[in-house]
């Protein structure tokens, strides 16, 4: 790490805004925070007196829990607001909500929202730092960072790897962040899935589109399957889950195409038997549980860094 470097971001809105240097710095910080999670007393006073609000407009268990644990381990005061969509339907806009939150003097707001760009809107209208915990079909930067951390742990590097991302690319903010992130870190990203789930212009984000899953997986170091997000489908994008599983699902046979030591990832929650067979999800190559563990460390690093990285 260069001596001069200071983490330059007030908000974490997306991987798009981060440089490879920023990403490396976050991953290094996260790696050092992993050590805290292995201590008997898993708590440091780093963010004592800081207030973190978790503002979730979409249901989420793992991401919210992961952020909450991260905030607690950093000794921050944290509050959860499950705004659901009820306040929105009552006519309170996101900006109103933001203004009301200002009275709590938060230092950090972690937001998840079904509209792309809502963290950007929030950041414009509030003094606090904003962390995007998933916005619409745009980005999910903390998930991507934990995926990169997991890959780096297992492969020792990211540069030069072949990453295959399979499935619902169009609705997946995880895919969008990972295409940007892994590409920035020097990996090659191949995507495949039903053509109806591949967004226009995804090549311009750095991905190579393959018409078959086999082609995408061929010689890959990392195979990541995405959740089929039935709730985001406005129209029938593929004929049936059965057909999906048989042509695009990750199974033992398809995995043979990848490198023998390839790792299997999934941002969860898995529709077992659809995106991935049970044996693959629970198999030796699967690192899905590491992803969850690394999530806390990455989120601790993000909280720490956007607060200026002081008092360690």
């Amino acid at each position, binding site marked *: 790490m260069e001596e001069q470097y200071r983490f330059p971001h007030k908000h974490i809105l997306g991987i798009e805004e981060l440089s490879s240097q920023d990403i490396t710095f976050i991953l290094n910080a996260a790696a050092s925070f992993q050590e805290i999670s292995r201590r008997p007393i898993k708590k440091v006073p780093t963010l004592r007196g800081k207030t973190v609000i978790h503002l979730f407009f979409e249901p989420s268990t793992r991401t919210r829990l992961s952020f909450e644990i991260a905030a607690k381990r950093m000794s921050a005061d944290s509050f959860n607001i499950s705004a659901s969509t009820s306040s929105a339907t009552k006519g309170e*806009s*996101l*900006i109103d909500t933001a203004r009301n939150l200002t009275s709590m003097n938060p230092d950090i707001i972690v937001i998840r929202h079904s509209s792309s760009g809502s963290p950007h*809107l929030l950041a414009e209208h509030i003094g606090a730092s904003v962390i995007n915990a998933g916005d619409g079909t*745009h*980005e999910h930067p903390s998930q991507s960072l934990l995926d990169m951390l997991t890959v780096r742990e297992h492969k020792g590097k990211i540069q030069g790897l072949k990453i295959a991302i399979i499935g619902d690319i169009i609705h997946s903010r995880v895919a969008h962040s990972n295409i940007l992130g892994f590409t920035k870190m020097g990996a090659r990203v191949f995507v495949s899935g039903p053509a109806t789930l591949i967004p226009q212009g995804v090549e311009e984000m750095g991905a190579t589109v393959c018409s078959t899953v086999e082609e995408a997986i061929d010689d890959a170091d990392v195979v990541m399957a995405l959740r089929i997000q039935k709730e985001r489908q406005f129209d029938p994008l593929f004929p049936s889950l059965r057909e999906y599983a048989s042509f695009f699902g990750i199974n033992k046979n398809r995995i043979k195409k990848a490198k023998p030591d390839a790792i299997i990832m999934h941002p969860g929650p898995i529709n077992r038997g659809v995106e991935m067979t049970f044996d693959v999800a629970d198999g030796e190559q699967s690192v899905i549980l590491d992803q969850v563990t690394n999530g806390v460390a990455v989120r601790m690093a993000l909280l720490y860094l956007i607060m200026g990285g002081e008092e360690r």
Partner: protein
Amino acid sequence: MSPTETLLLQNGRVIDPANQIDGPGDILIENGRIKTTGDAYSLQCPENGKTVDLQGKWLVPGLIDMHVHLREPGEEYKETIASGTKAAAAGGFTAVACMPNTNPVNDCQAVTALILSKAREAGFARVYPVGAISKNSAGTELAEFGELKQSGAVAVSDDGRPVANSQLMRRALEYSGNHDLLVISHSEEMSLSKNGVMNEGALATRLGLRGIPRVAEEIMIYRDLSLAQYVRRPIHIAHISTRESVALIRRAKEQGCMVTAETAPHYFSLTEKAVGQYDTKAKMNPPLRTQDDREAIFEGLKDGTIDVIATDHAPHSPREKELEFDQAANGIIGLETAVPLTMNLVRDNILSPSGMIELLSLQPARIIGVEGGSLSIGSAADITVIDPDKQFIYTKERVVSKNTNSPFLDWEFTGKAVLTIVGGKITFSEIEGIG
């Protein structure tokens, strides 16, 4: 309209494409009409009149915007007929045609009459109501075209939404012939555009925003051109935004289809990049497209494929606009920026001054069949004076419209309307000693 003035407009650059005039001249206005015209400094002002010297300024027939949303009745917090026509006057427009997607929808005599009476009361511009194609613009039954025409509608449209049912569109085109009403098509194939919020492509993908493909517009234009050609009726295509839309209309014209078309200043001034970081002031329908589309719009304006520049003036309050991008309403205000934005095309040699006035005055008058569009002796004194060199910044404070949802806020412009006269009455003036 209220009392008119006797006014000698002297030594302006008279640009009057209807009479193929472009040169220095005088115009004398008396009793709300153009009394005489002549060479520069050739006319005398009667004793009771005022004289204005317009050295360096353009003297043109009053501008006509054939596509605006005045929001009254029903959404007066966004705009009223008074505030919208005041904004029109400030932008150099002497007449506007207002779309029927008010609440209630303008699908009957009562609403048309209300609009006309409010417009007369306000007195800032002539207002030509556009009636609905279908009752309540619901897309099922034809509205009463005869009654609409009798009460003052100049055209019919379900603007804001397409006529999804092809049979209904065919019937509308046919039946409009009985009442000499123009059918205006908002061309959008909804099954392709549904839930979309910006132009489909790499940028929408990167922003995680659902795309509206250009084919959603083009397929519907193709359908409507086919129907119009088939039943041999005129059709006007509103707000075209893509290269292929221009090409479809060009080809239809070559084949003798009675089609006219408009684009809006934002489609030749901006691209999808204006969405930036989710700027809802760049959200409209059809969406901003790419530089390639923009260049095709230039060509269409140049070669006459596009007949009209209309603003699609669509005021919204912060309640509809200061929201998440996918939740925000479509549309921007446009009346006050149409002249300066079109002046940019004149300076870039895409349009001649006379071509600009055809697009903003002569053609819309002809297409909707209303008076105006020329400076002929005896015609109503609807006149706009444009200062091509006047520099200004379009700040939030200077917006006349009731709302400020414009992507052009804080833009620096050169060229604007400085005097607007409707039937001899001054409705807007930035000229000292006048108005």
